[in-house]
């Protein structure tokens, strides 16, 4: 018989209870099973009322982020056998409001993501007939790391600054702003700087660095934010020393 492991899963049923409770389930601990497999086993065999988000099961969609033993993890990439003999605590991503069980409310992130204009901004559009904007492999390499973000929000759950101040624009949104700023086809860096150089933007970050450590895609949001701080400081100095410089 395969080994078994206990999952301590956070339940929150707003129509029944005012605050979350913990429910224990015992699931098989197959060698190749991840935490998400355990949750699916619960949903299929033990308790169909458990709610959680998931989709691709392969670290691409970014839906299955949860706290596993207090660490933000993609549950599709977190092996149960690493937690033997258990028990394993599974909680919704911290710092977000909980809608139900393991499902969090992510509107705040979506609004912030949109605010940094995550698309290519051009000052001078060229007609379609002139063809595409070309880019060298080096130019692609400049921003590629930041473009790997899957919006899983693990970095927000790792960021105590976001936990303490919900106005902070947060790691992923800033890294994605940097993704477009560093794209050779983009000309919108100044527009983004106005949003990001506010107090709730880059200056809210105290460089805890945990966002980078928990990122399943090695995006390095902490690096993006510090690099942005450096750039914003340089811009400020240039404007200060040369006030005649056109913005």
């Amino acid at each position, binding site marked *: 018989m395969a080994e078994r492991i206990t999952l301590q899963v956070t339940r929150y049923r707003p129509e029944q209870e005012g605050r979350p409770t913990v429910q224990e389930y015992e699931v098989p601990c197959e060698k190749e099973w991840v935490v998400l497999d355990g949750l699916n086993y619960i949903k299929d065999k033990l308790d169909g009322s458990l709610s959680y988000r998931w989709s691709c099961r392969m670290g691409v969609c970014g839906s299955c982020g949860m706290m596993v033993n*207090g660490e933000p993890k993609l549950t599709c990439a977190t092996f149960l056998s690493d937690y033997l003999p258990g028990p394993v605590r599974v909680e919704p991503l911290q710092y977000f*409001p909980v809608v139900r069980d393991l499902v969090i409310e992510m509107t705040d992130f979506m609004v912030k993501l949109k605010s940094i204009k995550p698309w290519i901004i051009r000052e001078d559009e060229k007609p379609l007939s002139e063809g595409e904007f070309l880019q060298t492999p080096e130019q692609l390499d400049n921003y590629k790391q930041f473009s790997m973000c899957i919006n899983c929000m693990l970095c927000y759950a790792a960021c105590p600054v976001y936990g303490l101040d919900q106005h902070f624009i947060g790691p992923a949104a800033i890294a994605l702003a940097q993704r477009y700023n560093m794209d050779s086809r983009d000309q919108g860096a100044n527009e983004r700087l106005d949003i990001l150089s506010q107090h709730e933007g880059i200056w809210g970050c105290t460089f805890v*660095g*945990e966002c*980078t450590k928990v990122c399943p895609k090695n995006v390095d949001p902490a690096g993006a934010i*510090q690099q942005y701080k450096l750039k914003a400081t340089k811009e400020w100095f240039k404007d200060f020393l040369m006030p005649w410089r056109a913005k």
Partner: protein
Amino acid sequence: MKETPVYTEYHPRWYRARVSTYWWIRQWKYLKFILRELSSLSVAYFVVLTLLQLRALSRGPASYAAFQEWLKSPIVMALNVVSLLFVLFHTITWFNLTPSAMPVRVRGKRLPDWMIAAPNYVAWLALSAVIAWLILRD
């Protein structure tokens, strides 16, 4: 159908967990961050100490001797040792963070992290050696 139908309006009742004041105690990584932030107090303390030392120096030999006596008291010694440890912690943690703030690219390739952190340590050692030479010569 005069009656108005009764709808159960769906409105999600979110649960928002309050962030504990002691969020930084439970995990070493967050405690380390708070210690790194606190270490700036030690940096400030050494700045003040140096200013006091300069003031004592400008007031003449008697004043400076008194200042040195004060430095020898066990409490000040203990404070200085603790502050030194904090300043070392401050320096090392920040030096190790420089690569992520300043990625340097040479011919399209990003330099490895240690190559960006190393010059800080070299400069630190060189400056310390110069200062040690200034103080210890004769």
